[in-house]
């Protein structure tokens, strides 16, 4: 099912949580609503489910206007952040409960619940109570319960935030698998860019109630529309250098260094931010270079070694090549790759 | 561990009642005799004018002498007798209280009350009338454990305006009363003619007037299951059935129903007169049985026994003082109670007092009798009240009497 929202706005008193938000969620896709806390992503999800009424705008499921339809008639399955599994019911009863509400005969709903349990791999835990399950198992049960009504739309609210790091990796693969097996249009809310990047067909990035950019994960990373998008995605975070365009070169604010640029849109004298992803810098001890820097500090993250470098009085973070050893205080030469280097307007944050 | 805690907790909760009786007594010990003066305590629940009078009398007494010092301790009214009982038994109770003879009876078996005849001055003992003395020595051991210093009792109150309207007067006999009630009923069908404020006293009155007694303490014989008593009860039952009498109170006392005009007359405490708002007339209790009899509620001094001659003698000394006619009269005034001693009644103070209390003249003191001061009193009172309720409720009179006797016998057997 395709979900279309038009000019969706939500105000709580004077506070605007979601502002004039329009977009399409394609049929059968897994889409992440991504953004920092308070960006309006959960509000959007709750408006889609019908838990929250909209202030203005429209929501369409395919061609049906469901803006004012109560939650139970929308055909959505919701998986809450803390799972909201009923503690007094067994796994089987929890999964079957939505059908119990619909007064589906007992035999039938239990059969269906077993089927769902099998799909999410909890079929050996049917008689357990929620408190006897691990976080990941609870998550699976919650998904099964959300899916048992064969919803047109599956909504997951921060599905992985209550899990530890290892389970998070496992569960995000599971969500992907279950979504693909069922083919249900799925929207999930997260503040974790890595989570969104790794399993989604599409990411919708929001900030302060406004849509920033919606795209395939890689596109979002490779081609950010603005500084916020560039900053939000990527680990380690993108490096930002502040400066101006002078004679076709990027010159640091204090003039202590300059970098050759190749961007026809850059206007002379314009104040800009240069965004450089850590992996877009190559480092060497000699040879041609775009600019120079001094190693300030080194640290290791997993198998990779990174360093903070001083360029003039600003700092960037880059991967060190394993070909050489570098000492703190050593002068090094840097080259920029084509990919992963962006210029943004300092005032608006828009991409140049 | 959890189980143990739970168990302990449950134990604690359940036995808190028993705990109160086991170790709850926090009374200050009355203190042993100092080198010179013997300290004697009196516990009381009096307030206002009564407390003032008592404390002044004590101060005067203490000033008058150098051997004994009396100390008054004011106690809360609720649970007073229970507290006294615990404290006396634990050996740290008061030397004296002012209470009913029945209270003293509780201590007789344990030998915890003093035989006053051994300690009081002969003049003091001589103050008592024959009937008062009979009550003071009516205990199981035949000793004298109380010196009654004030009295009270029930009298007949009627709605003056109503009785005048119907041309009625205070009844001399029960038959007169029933005739009065019938006249009231004829005119005002919703009104009840009469009620007993205390069913127990009502029963006792009806029984004693037949010439029968309640109980023989020496033989544990119950004496009131007789045809004469049954006839009296039948009279009461018929009057209730005809709507002439009632036994259903709206509040704690029938004075409220009297004020509201629900009943035309009742028998209640003479001390209740100040609570009546309707204009009332008074009379003595109706008679008509084999003997003339009315209940008396005497209160007096009780001295507890701690096997300490000095303290007992000291307490008796104070009683000698407090029983003197003038001082006793002042106490009667402070309490608004009639006197028991003829000598007191002769004082000017008392005469002036009685002149302002018409109700006392209807107490019929020469025919007044008290409830026997025996431990079985508790059962007898319960049995009498049940008897009256059952009879009023329409139970066969003889069955009700048999049940009352059976109840007392059962309790006695359990002693």
């Amino acid at each position: 099912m395709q979900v279309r929202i038009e000019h969706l706005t939500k105000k709580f008193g004077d506070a605007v949580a979601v502002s004039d938000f329009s977009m399409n969620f394609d049929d059968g896709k897994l889409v992440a609503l991504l953004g920092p806390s308070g960006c309006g992503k959960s509000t959007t999800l709750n408006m889609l489910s019908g838990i929250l009424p909209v202030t203005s705008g429209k929501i369409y499921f395919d061609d049906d206007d469901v803006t004012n339809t109560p939650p139970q008639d929308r055909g959505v399955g919701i998986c809450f952040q803390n799972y909201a599994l009923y503690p007094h019911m067994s796994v089987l009863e929890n999964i079957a409960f939505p059908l119990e509400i619909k007064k589906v005969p007992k035999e039938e709903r239990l059969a269906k619940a077993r089927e769902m349990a099998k799909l999410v791999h909890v079929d050996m835990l049917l008689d357990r109570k929620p408190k006897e399950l691990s976080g990941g198992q609870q998550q699976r049960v919650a998904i099964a319960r959300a899916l048992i009504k064969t919803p047109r739309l599956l909504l997951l609210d921060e599905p992985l935030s209550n899990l530890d790091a290892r389970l998070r990796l496992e569960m995000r693969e599971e969500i992907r698998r279950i979504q693909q097996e069922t083919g249900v249009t799925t929207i999930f809310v997260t503040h974790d860019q890595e989570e969104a990047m790794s399993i989604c067909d599409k990411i919708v990035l929001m900030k302060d109630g406004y849509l920033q950019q919606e795209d395939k994960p890689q596109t979002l990373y490779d081609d950010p529309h603005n500084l916020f998008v560039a900053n939000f995605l990527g680990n380690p975070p993108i490096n930002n250098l502040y400066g101006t365009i002078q004679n076709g070169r990027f010159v640091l604010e204090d003039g202590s260094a300059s970098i050759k640029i190749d961007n026809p849109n850059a206007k002379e004298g314009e104040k800009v931010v240069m965004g450089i992803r850590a992996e877009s810098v190559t480092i060497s001890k000699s040879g041609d270079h775009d600019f120079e820097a001094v190693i300030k500090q080194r640290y290791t993250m997993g198998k990779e070694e990174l360093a903070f470098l001083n360029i003039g009085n600003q700092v960037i973070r880059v991967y060190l090549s394993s070909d050489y050893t570098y000492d703190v205080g050593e002068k090094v030469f840097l080259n920029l790759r084509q990919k992963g280097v962006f210029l943004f307007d300092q005032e608006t944050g828009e991409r140049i | 561990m959890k189980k143990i805690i739970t168990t302990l907790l449950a134990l604690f909760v359940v036995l808190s009642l028993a705990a109160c009786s086991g170790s709850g007594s926090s009374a200050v010990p009355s203190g042993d005799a100092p080198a010179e003066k013997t300290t004697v305590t009196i516990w009381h629940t009096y307030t206002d004018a009564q407390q003032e009078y008592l404390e002044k009398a004590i101060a005067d007494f203490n000033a008058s002498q150098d051997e004994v010092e009396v100390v008054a301790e004011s106690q809360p009214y609720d649970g007073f007798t229970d507290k006294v009982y615990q404290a006396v038994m634990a050996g740290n109770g008061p030397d004296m209280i002012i209470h009913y003879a029945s209270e003293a009876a509780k201590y007789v078996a344990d030998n915890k009350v003093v035989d006053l005849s051994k300690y009081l001055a002969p003049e003091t003992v001589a103050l008592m009338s024959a009937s008062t003395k009979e009550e003071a020595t009516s205990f199981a051991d035949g000793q004298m454990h109380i010196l009654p210093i004030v009295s009270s009792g029930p009298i007949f109150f009627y709605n003056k305006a109503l009785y005048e309207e119907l041309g009625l007067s205070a009844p001399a006999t029960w038959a007169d009363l029933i005739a009065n009630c019938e006249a009231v009923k004829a005119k005002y069908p919703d009104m009840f003619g009469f009620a007993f404020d205390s069913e127990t006293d009502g029963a006792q009155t009806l029984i004693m007037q037949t010439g029968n007694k309640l109980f023989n303490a020496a033989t544990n014989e119950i004496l009131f299951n007789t045809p004469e008593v049954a006839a009296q009860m039948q009279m009461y039952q018929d009057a209730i059935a005809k709507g002439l009498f009632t036994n259903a109170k709206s509040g704690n006392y029938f004075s409220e129903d009297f004020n509201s005009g629900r009943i035309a007359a009742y028998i209640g405490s003479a001390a209740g007169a100040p609570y009546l708002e309707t204009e009332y007339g008074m009379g003595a209790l109706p008679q008509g049985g084999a003997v003339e009899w009315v209940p008396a509620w005497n209160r007096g001094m009780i001295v507890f026994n701690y096997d300490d001659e000095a303290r007992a003698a000291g307490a008796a000394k104070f009683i000698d003082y407090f029983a003197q006619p003038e001082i006793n009269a002042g106490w009667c005034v402070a309490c608004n109670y009639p006197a028991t001693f003829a000598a007191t009644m002769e004082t000017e103070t008392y005469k002036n007092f009685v002149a302002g209390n018409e109700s006392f003249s209807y107490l019929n003191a020469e025919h007044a009798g008290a409830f026997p001061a025996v431990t079985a009193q508790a059962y007898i009172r319960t049995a009498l009240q049940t008897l009256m309720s059952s009879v009023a409720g329409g139970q066969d009179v003889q069955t009700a009497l048999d049940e009352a006797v059976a109840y007392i016998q059962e309790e006695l057997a359990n002693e």
Partner: protein
Amino acid sequence: MTAKKKKKREGGEFNNGLEPVIYLLPFVIGLLIFTVYPIINVVLMSFKEGYRLSGSFTGIGLKNYTQVLGDKNFANAVRNTFIYVFSVVPIATVLAVIIANLLNQKIKAMALFQTAYFLPMVTSSIAVGLSWRYMFNTQFGVINWLLGVFGAGPIDWLGATGGQAPYNIFVIIIFGIWNMLPFTIILLLSGLQNIDPMYYTAAKVDGADSGMIFRRITVPLLLPTIFLTMIINMISSFKVYNEVIPFWSGKAGALSNNLYTMVYYIKETFYSKLRLGNAAAASIVLFLIIFVFTMLQKWVQKKFDY
């Protein structure tokens, strides 16, 4: 060795030495004096025959127990107490669940309702009992008036007819329920407020109506609290005494002994009849009854511990 000693002095190790014992001592002494000693005393007293407060007794044995268990009044007290407990506790619990649920909604004039429901808690049950006595009055009581409106009654709540007083017990049951409600409601209300609203949202999104939510979610999630209140209320109800006092001027019912409860019996036996051994034995019997029911309930409660 020296090092270890020094460390101790610095207060690093809390489990050793006399220090904790000293801290605990005041509490332990209090417990021994006010709890343990009276309990032991009552147990001992219950085996002493002819015991008097002066300390004398005539023998040791089970006579107190055989007397109490053979006493018609005690049998009556046990019967009344059981009728009271097993009508007041369940009815009050059901009412309290319903009322607490209503109070948990957002309704107007909530403060008024809350005051009304919590009134019994801040007033003395004996004082309030006196005004209830007027309400139960046969002729002008508001309760009979209400019954009259529906064409029933009048019922002689407080009186006796023909040596029987069948309605007396309903008086204390009704009064007992009213008395029990506020405390129960407060506990249940806090229990309700501890239920994560997420469960309601989840059920509502799936289309559950309020009846379904109440039955399948609210009540089951409230069950642990319900059991807690039932245990507390049952223990206090077995000790029913104050509820009897106001209606018959301190007597136990219209016939003055028909409405004996166990605590009333114990009090009466102790203070009026001065049979201390009997009273102690009756206390132990009461304790055992409460103990058995509390354990039974705890055992049932375990099955509902989520």
